[in-house]
């Protein structure tokens, strides 16, 4: 045989681990505090929590720091840690209508009931790299704080801006179906009267009131599929799809959504009716009284997306809807999620789309398989070489050079390879 049993590498591995540990602390800069990570890299923390499927800004910031910014590593740390924790309870089911908005926009309606609330968003910010010298930063922050006082003229307690929308029932330049305008107007008026600026009515309610949607509600209440207990495979219910989408890697999701949209058969794209970022309550039943208690709040991004049904076997007089919801502020993810939820539904649950959604979008699955390529594949590779040489020999009519040939002739590549394996 061309290779012998060999032992070794243990010391090298230990040394490599040491190098990682020391490298993490190297350099002259102070250690990142967890506050710095949660406050200055909040979107990285949000993304890790979503992909790890674990809400804990404290643990997620630790993971981001330990992983030195590697998103996948951080997510893997959190997922691994999560597997060591006991499950204490299931929350009471929360309705998404309870979401207290920090931001709410709609591409489907210009002035949806409850208004467009831009919130804290980069959507309108120019992508200019900030080259401010480090020493100017303090003055910059001081100027920012000073300017805040000026714009706070009307801001005390509850803002009343929402109430003026009832007055805006004027003619829009954009041609609108009058029935739509009336209904939108009605709902806007209702929203304006309500004190609840933070829970604007959902576009889906409007769509249902206009009888435009496919009715997807069956009145049944199946138990949700738990992807943490058993892997979801095609044929799994929609709750499994939503769970897998919620924990999918953001980049993979966006890429996969884009790939689907590239399909020449699909005309155009879906339109998000709701993109929301805000707080959802976490309620559990009090162990002594049995009644629900809110024990925490979780920040989420939620999206409703609407698509024109245009396939021959679909009801073309209706619109269908997809839904996406994930931990943290991650609009790209929720928008792609909603689009894929709808795509899986339209294609049927056992389609290739469903399979890819359930299996290939998970970070641990995909990255894990990729990373395994770095494990020794020496035997595999040696057998590939052997096969190539056998084929070459057949083609040229010469005898293949066996690895056991002891003659150390120059150009005896096989023997040289033997030493490498």
């Amino acid at each position, binding site marked *: 045989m061309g290779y012998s049993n060999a032992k070794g590498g243990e010391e090298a591995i230990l040394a490599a681990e040491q190098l990682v540990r020391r490298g993490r602390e190297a350099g002259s800069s102070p250690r990142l505090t967890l506050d710095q990570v949660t406050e200055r890299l909040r979107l990285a923390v949000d993304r890790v929590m979503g992909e790890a499927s674990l809400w804990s800004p404290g643990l997620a910031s630790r993971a981001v720091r330990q992983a030195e910014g590697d998103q996948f590593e951080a997510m893997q740390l959190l997922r691994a840690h999560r597997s060591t924790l006991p499950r204490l*309870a299931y929350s009471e089911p929360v309705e998404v209508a309870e979401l207290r908005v920090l931001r709410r926009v709609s591409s489907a309606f210009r002035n949806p009931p409850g208004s467009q609330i831009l919130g804290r968003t980069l959507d309108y910010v120019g992508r200019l790299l900030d080259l401010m010298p480090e020493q100017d930063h303090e003055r910059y922050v001081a100027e920012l704080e000073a300017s805040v006082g000026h714009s706070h003229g009307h801001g005390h307690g509850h803002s009343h801006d929402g109430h003026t929308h009832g007055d805006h029932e004027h003619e829009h330049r954009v041609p609108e179906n009058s029935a739509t305008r009336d209904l939108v107007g009605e709902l806007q008026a209702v929203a304006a009267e309500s004190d609840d600026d933070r829970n604007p009515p959902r576009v889906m309610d409007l769509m249902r009131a206009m009888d435009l949607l496919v009715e997807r509600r069956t009145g049944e209440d199946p138990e949700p599929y738990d992807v943490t207990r058993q892997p979801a495979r095609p044929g799994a219910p929609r709750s499994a799809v939503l769970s897998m989408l919620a924990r999918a890697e953001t980049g993979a999701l966006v890429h996969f959504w884009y790939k689907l949209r590239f399909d020449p058969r699909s005309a155009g794209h879906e339109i998000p009716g709701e993109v929301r970022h805000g707080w959802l309550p976490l309620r559990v039943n009090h162990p002594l009284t049995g009644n629900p208690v809110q024990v925490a709040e979780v920040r989420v991004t939620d999206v409703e997306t609407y698509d024109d049904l245009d396939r021959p076997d679909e009801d073309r007089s209706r619109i269908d809807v997809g839904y996406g919801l994930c931990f943290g502020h991650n609009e790209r993810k929720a928008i792609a999620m909603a689009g894929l939820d709808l795509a899986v539904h339209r294609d049927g649950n056992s389609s290739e789309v469903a399979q890819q959604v359930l299996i290939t979008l998970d970070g641990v699955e995909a990255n894990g398989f990729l990373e395994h390529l770095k494990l020794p594949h020496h035997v595999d590779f040696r057998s590939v070489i052997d096969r190539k040489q056998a084929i070459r020999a057949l083609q040229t009519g010469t005898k293949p050079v066996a690895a056991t040939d002891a003659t150390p002739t120059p150009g005896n590549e096989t023997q040289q390879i033997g030493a490498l394996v």
Partner: protein
Amino acid sequence: MTTTRTLTYGETIRRIGRAPEDSQRDYRRLIDVLGRPSRIAAIDTVDGVPPVIILAAGLADVDVTVAVLDEDWERPFFVATGATRTDITRAQHIIATQPLTVDQLTSLERGDALHPERGARVFAAVTGFGDAVDGADSTTLILSGPGNDGEARLSVDGLAPEFFDALAIANADFPAGIDLVLVAPDGRIAAIPRSSRISIEKPEKGA
């Protein structure tokens, strides 16, 4: 054996709660007797709490559906373990401090060939294992099947022969069926998995 609570509610919950080492130790003993159905092992007892409650508590958490057939122990059990409460026909674990009736036994979930794991597991309190000198209130079972080394005998006090007849019928459709764990007041345990075939030894005439 008294099954009524004499401790305060809080103290009861505290004593039912099992530390991981304790429940792991109990679990190993349970596995032991499930593997050899005529063997009798013992779990450590806790003052003031029936051993059947203790053993079942170590195996219950939020993902296990449990029915506790005892008004006194029901609430503290669920508060202590966080287990999911459900009725006897759907529970994975049933805890009986008093003898289960045949009707109750036949109403339990047995699972089916594709999903045998859905079959219920009963934790039943018994008064002993063939302890009475005159054999009163005792049923001697002849067990055959895996772990029984041909044929083995197990005497159970406090459960009527009809109960075991019903159990044999419930387990006739193996791998569907019901697993039975027996717990005496002093902490001794025995078990009859659904894989064991049960027949009842007739008492000798004139003994």
